[in-house]
């Protein structure tokens, strides 16, 4: 108990728990949070977890996530749970889930795919082949996106 890491409770905001170890910074970047917004943010990385072995946690005070942000988190951290906090209490707890189809969010890596053709009214659509490791397959051309591809598209390059 004496070595337990303590981060104080937040009044209102979001706690994203059970993030795959080492991916907390991707989650922050994907949410567009740099730290310069003045929000109170706690990032805990590589702490022991019964479910995952090790995990990351992100707490953001004053931000309630939108649905599209939640689905993006699922692609980066498929085991994440999202806790919405109001008045120091968890008022909503959502376990993210990778949807079977990911539409319009990602770009196909194949330049010869119809979805990359400028001027055509077509949205990308990927079928989830596997969650761990993440593999998405383009419904049009069959090209696959790996976890790395998805991270680099969602957070704009690896760091």
């Amino acid at each position, binding site marked *: 108990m004496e070595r337990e890491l303590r981060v104080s409770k937040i009044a209102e905001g979001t706690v994203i728990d059970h993030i795959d170890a080492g991916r907390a910074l991707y989650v922050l970047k994907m949410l567009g949070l740099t730290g310069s917004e003045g929000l109170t943010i706690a990032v805990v990385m590589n702490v022991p977890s019964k479910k995952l072995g090790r995990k990351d946690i992100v707490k953001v005070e004053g931000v309630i996530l939108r649905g599209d942000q939640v689905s993006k988190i699922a692609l980066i951290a498929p085991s994440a749970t999202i806790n919405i906090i109001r008045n120091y209490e968890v008022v909503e707890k959502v376990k993210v889930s990778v949807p079977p189809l990911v539409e319009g969010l990602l770009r196909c890596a194949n330049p010869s795919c*119809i979805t990359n053709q400028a001027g*055509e009214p077509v949205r990308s659509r990927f079928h989830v082949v596997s969650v761990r490791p993440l593999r998405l397959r383009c419904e049009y*051309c*069959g090209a696959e996106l790996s976890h790395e591809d998805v991270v680099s598209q969602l957070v704009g390059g690896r760091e």
Partner: protein
Amino acid sequence: MKGRDVITVLDFSRSEVERVFEETDAMQRALERGERLDVLRGFVMATAFFEPSTRTKLSFQTAMLRLGGSCIDLPPEELSSRAKGESFADTIRMLDAYADVIVVRHRLEGAARFAAEIAAHPVINGGDGTRDHPTQAMIDLYTVRKALGRIDGLVYGVLGDLRYGRAARSFILALTLFNPKKIYLISPPQLASRPEIIERIRERSIEYEEVRSLHEVISELDVLYVTRVQRERFPDPMEYEKVRGSYRVTAESLKGAKPNLVVLHPLPRVDELAYDVDATQHAWYFRQASFGVPLRMALLKLILRG
């Protein structure tokens, strides 16, 4: 099968493919007897080929005409509204308003699937980029069935560009609907089958082996599917010169083959299949091309009439 799109051969089950083959047999008999058929009278087929084609387009049009139907064809780019910048989507929408079925060929992968999403009428993929050519694959397997009486239990060699060639890719996928004894994938390493194809073969528990030359396996094969290894796939012309001999099929290279080996080729050929093979008992590729008409007749009838 009525109203179905034909985008990839994997849209079909084995029994559906066999149903197409039975119907093809019937069409073949009717053609041989010189019967005049009019089962599709009043139906219109649109062909929209955004890439060059000889056999596919002409055999689809012949098939439709032989069944008493009519054809309309999208003019070449410079003579149509595409020259004014009309999108593929709008072109398909227009054809959908005119025709009962649309056959599409396009250089972009996924174009046929996209067309099928836009069009209310059935869309048949006549080839999309490096991906699918489902009716070619059906013709190929139909030829095997004609030549050897079965598709299951045979040893297949697929030779050439297995990576970018849609005919070879579709042939392998079609084989996975059946139970081949073994598939040899014969190609230089840079033109080897894509991982998703290997994954599909494995999922179906089909025995396969990737080999680098025809010579190693020729004596075991029942069917040899030949496609071209294109020079432009090799960054270094010297590399191409080194390997081309291993992927060129000649009467000489077929010595040691089983007497009833069936050699297939989707055509057109350039120099990967020598003319001296034409005179051997192995040459099935012209008959294969001729089956394009009855098979497409069968498919059009099943899709438009059931």
